[in-house]
C-alpha cells in the first residue's frame, strides 16, 4: 500500500468522505452492539431518539454541547497556530473558580454589569493560565503538551484545596462544594423550566466571533501563517512569538468561558465533578470540526448527542453507555482517515 498526493479535492469528495466516516462509525458500533447481544438497528434508533427525538432530548443535547463548544473553540484556535493546548480542562476550572469568587455576593452589582464583568474576569484567568506554558514554549522550547497536560492535575488539586478551604460553603453540610452564585450572576434559562441556558447563545456568539477573527482579521491571518509554517512567517517579518502568546490568551479565555457558563448557567456552584472531561473532549470536537470554528458547533452537538443518546439507550436496551465513548473515539479515527483520503490517493499493489 502506498500514498500518492492528489490535487485539491472536489466538492463531492469533501462531503462524501466525512459522511463515509460517520457511516463506518455506525457500522463499527453496530458490531459491538451485536457482541453485547442487542439489535444494532434498535440501538442506533434509540441513540438517535435519545439525542434528538423529543424536546427534552434536544434540550439536553444542546445543554451538553454548550461547554464542548467553548472548549472545542479553545482547542481549535490553539491547534490552528500549532500551539498544542491540552489544558482546556484546567482553564475551564479556573474560569469556574473566578465565577464563584466574583459571583457569590462579593460584587453587589446588577446582572447586566455583573455578568459581563465575571465573563471578562474568567477569560482573563484562563488566558493567564495558558500564558505560562506558552511563555515557556517560546522562551525555552518547553513542550507545551507536557506543561498544559500536567497543569490540569495541578489546577484540579488547587480547586480541591479551595473547596475544602476558603471557598467551602459553610452551609454545605461538609460537602466539598461552594456557595451558589447570586441571582444577579445567573444566566437566564432559554426555555422556562428546562436546563438549556443563555450560555448556549454565548457559545454560538463565541463561535461566530472566532470565525471572524480567524478569517477576517490580521491576527487570525498571522495565527494561521504561524501554524502552517512558522519559518516562513518569521521570514516574512511576523512576530512569531508574540503571535503565539496572543493565541494562548484567546484559547485560554475561550476554555475558561466553559467553566463560567457551566457554573453561572447550569450548576450554580462549583464542585469537583463540574466537568466530566469537557476539556479533553474539546480536543475531539475540534479535530472532528477540522479546526473550523463553525464546524466546532456542529461537532460539539454531534458528540453531545451521542453521549446523551447513549445514556437514554442504555436505560432502554441494556447496552452499556460506554458505547458512546467508543463511538466518539471511532468517529475521530475515521474522520482522520477521511481527511487523509481527501488529500492522498491510496494505491494497492
Amino acid at each position, binding site marked *: 500500500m502506498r500514498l500518492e498526493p*492528489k490535487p485539491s479535492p472536489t466538492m463531492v469528495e469533501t462531503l462524501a468522505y466525512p459522511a463515509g466516516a460517520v457511516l463506518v462509525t455506525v457500522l463499527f458500533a453496530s458490531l459491538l452492539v451485536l457482541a453485547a447481544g442487542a439489535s444494532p438497528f434498535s440501538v442506533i434508533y434509540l441513540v438517535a431518539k435519545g439525542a434528538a427525538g423529543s424536546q427534552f432530548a434536544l434540550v439536553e443535547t444542546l445543554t451538553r454541547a454548550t461547554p464542548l463548544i467553548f472548549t472545542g473553540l479553545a482547542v481549535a484556535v490553539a491547534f490552528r497556530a500549532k500551539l498544542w493546548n491540552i489544558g482546556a480542562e484546567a482553564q475551564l476550572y479556573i474560569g469556574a473558580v473566578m465565577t464563584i469568587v466574583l459571583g457569590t455576593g462579593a460584587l453587589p452589582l446588577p446582572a447586566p454589569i455583573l455578568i459581563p464583568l465575571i465573563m471578562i474576569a474568567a477569560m482573563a484567568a484562563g488566558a493567564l493560565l495558558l500564558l505560562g506554558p506558552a511563555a515557556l514554549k517560546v522562551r525555552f522550547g518547553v513542550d507545551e503538551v507536557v506543561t498544559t497536560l500536567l497543569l490540569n492535575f495541578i489546577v484540579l488539586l488547587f480547586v480541591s484545596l479551595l473547596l475544602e478551604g476558603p471557598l467551602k460553603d459553610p452551609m454545605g453540610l461538609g460537602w466539598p462544594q461552594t456557595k451558589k452564585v447570586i441571582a444577579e450572576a445567573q444566566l437566564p434559562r432559554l426555555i422556562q423550566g428546562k436546563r438549556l441556558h443563555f450560555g448556549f447563545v454565548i457559545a454560538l456568539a463565541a463561535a461566530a466571533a472566532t470565525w471572524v477573527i480567524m478569517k477576517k482579521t*490580521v491576527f487570525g491571518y498571522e495565527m494561521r501563517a504561524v501554524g502552517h509554517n512558522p*519559518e516562513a512567517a518569521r521570514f516574512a517579518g511576523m512576530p512569531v512569538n508574540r503571535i503565539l502568546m496572543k493565541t494562548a490568551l484567546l484559547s485560554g479565555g475561550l476554555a475558561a468561558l466553559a467553566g463560567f457558563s457551566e457554573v453561572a448557567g447550569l450548576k450554580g456552584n462549583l464542585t469537583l465533578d463540574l466537568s466530566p472531561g469537557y476539556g479533553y473532549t474539546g480536543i475531539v470536537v475540534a479535530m472532528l470540526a477540522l479546526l473550523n470554528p463553525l464546524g466546532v458547533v456542529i461537532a460539539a452537538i454531534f458528540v453531545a448527542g451521542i453521549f446523551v443518546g447513549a445514556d437514554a439507550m442504555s436505560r432502554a436496551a441494556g447496552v452499556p453507555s460506554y458505547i458512546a465513548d467508543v463511538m466518539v473515539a471511532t468517529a475521530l479515527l475515521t474522520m482522520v482517515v477521511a481527511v487523509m483520503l481527501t488529500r492522498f490517493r491510496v494505491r494497492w499493489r
Partner: protein
Amino acid sequence: MTDEATTTSGAQAGTPVLRLSGITKRFGPLVANNAISFALGRGEVVALLGENGAGKTTLMNILFGHYVADEGTVEVFGDRLPPGDPHAALEAGIGMVHQHFTLADNMTVLENIALGTQPVWSLRLDRGRARARIAELSADFGLAVDPGRLVSALSVGERQRVEILKALYRDARILILDEPTAVLTPAETEALFATLRMLVAKGLSIIFISHKLNEVMAVSDRVLVLRGGRLAGERATAGTTRQELAALMVGREVAPPQPAPVEPGAVLARLSGVSLRSDAGRLDDVTLDLRGGEIVGLAGVSGNGQAALAALLAGMVAPASGSLEIGGRPVTSWTPRAALAAGVGRIPENRHAVGTIGDMSVAENVISERYRDARFSSRGFLDWSAARGFAQSIVDAYDVKCPSPDARIRLLSGGNMQKLILGRALDPDPSLILANQPTRGLDVGAVSYVHERLLEARGRGAAILLISEDLDEILTLSDRIVVMSRGRLSAPSARGERSVAELGELMAGHGLDAGERGHAA
C-alpha cells in the same frame, strides 16, 4: 570483466541492458510520462536531459520501483522487472545515487555501505570481508575514501563517492545518477566524470540526469531530451550542440541574457568585518560593498556560509561583530521587518520551506510581508479584496500560471511559485535585492525570466547580491564576483577577470589565507 565495451561512439553501444517500452504514468489529469521508450546499451552513458517537471524524476522512480507505471514495461538484461518493487530493481542490478544523499551521518563509511546487505538477524557485520571488497572497488574505480571514517566527517564529494560505492557494493550494473554535480566544485565534478569513465570502461551502464548542458556534453554518449512528459528527441552527443539540446528542452530557441555594462552607483549596503554564528552557518570577518546598478555574484560550494550571509541581509540574524550599513546608516535592531522597512527585497533559498506557506492561498502568500500596510488592512481587519487584487496584479505582471488568487500555493509549480516570490519581493521597488539561489530547480524558460527581472531591477539602480551554486549563472549575470569558502569572502573580481579554474580554486578554499582575505573596495 572485459574492456571491449569501452566504445564511446554515438548510438547504441553494445547490447541493451535496459529497455523501457511505452512507459506512461498519470497523476490525475497530469501525464507525467507519455509513452516513453528507450534502450540503454552496455558501457554507455545516456544523459537524461529535461526541465523541471519534464518527467525525469518520475521516469527514474518508475525504473527504480518507487512508482508503478500505468502502462509500459521495464526490462533489465532481457527480463521483465516486476513493477513497484525497489528490491527487485536492486536485485536486477540497478543502483541509484540520489541528489540528496541517503547516508546515516553517525555511522562509518563501511557501515553505511554494508547496511542492508546482510540479513537483519545477523548479529554483526563481517567487517573484514566488507573492508576488502570496498578497498577493491575503491582501487578499481578511483573512489578513494577511508572506510573507517564517520560519514559526518566527510566532504560532500566524498559522500557522493560513498553513495556510488554503496551501489557498486550491491553489484549494480546500471547506475542512475540524479543531478550528481549540483553539490560539487568544478574540480570534484571533473573527478566524478573520471570515475564515470572508468565505470563504463568496466562495462557498467550509466543514466546521468541533469539539466546542465555543458556537463551532458562532457560526459554522455547519447542524450535523451524529455519535454512535458514526452521524449522530445534523442541525439548522439558527438553529433549535437548545446544550442540544439537547449532548443529541444524548451521547445524554442533560447538566447542567454546579455547584460549591458552599467556604471555602478552609490554604495547601498556595506558589510565591514562582519562575523557571526547562526543556525545557517558562520561568517568570519566579511567585508563587502553592494552598489546600486550592480549585480555581485557570490560563488561557493553549498554550506560555506552563503546561507549565513543571506540570513544576515534578510534580517534573520544580526552581526555578532562588525557592522552592517544599509543606505549609509548602520542598522541597530535588525529583524526581517526592519530589513523590509529598509528596502531589502528578499528571494529566499528555499521557496517551499521559507518563501511560501504551502497551505495558504496565493493571495495570502503575496501579502505576507506587507499585510500591515494601510493598503491591505485597517484596524486589525484585512482587506481581502485588496489582497486578491494585488495577487492578481502579480499573476498578470509576472505571467504566473495559477487558477485563481485563492488557490493554495502548494499546487503551483516551482517556477510559478518563484515568480510570485519575485513579484512580492520586487513590488515595492527595493533598493537592495538579495537573490539566494533564485533559479534553483527552475526550467530554462523560468530561469531566463528570473534573470530578465533581476537585470531589469539592476537597470533601475538596485544593488543585487546573487548567491548561486550554478557557476554559469554567476558568470553570466555578475558585474563583480566574490567567492565564499568556510565563512570567508575572497576579494572581488570584475567580470571576466578570474577564470573558472581560478574561481574553483577559491571555492575549494585555496588562496584564502590572511593576505588575500577579502576586503572589497
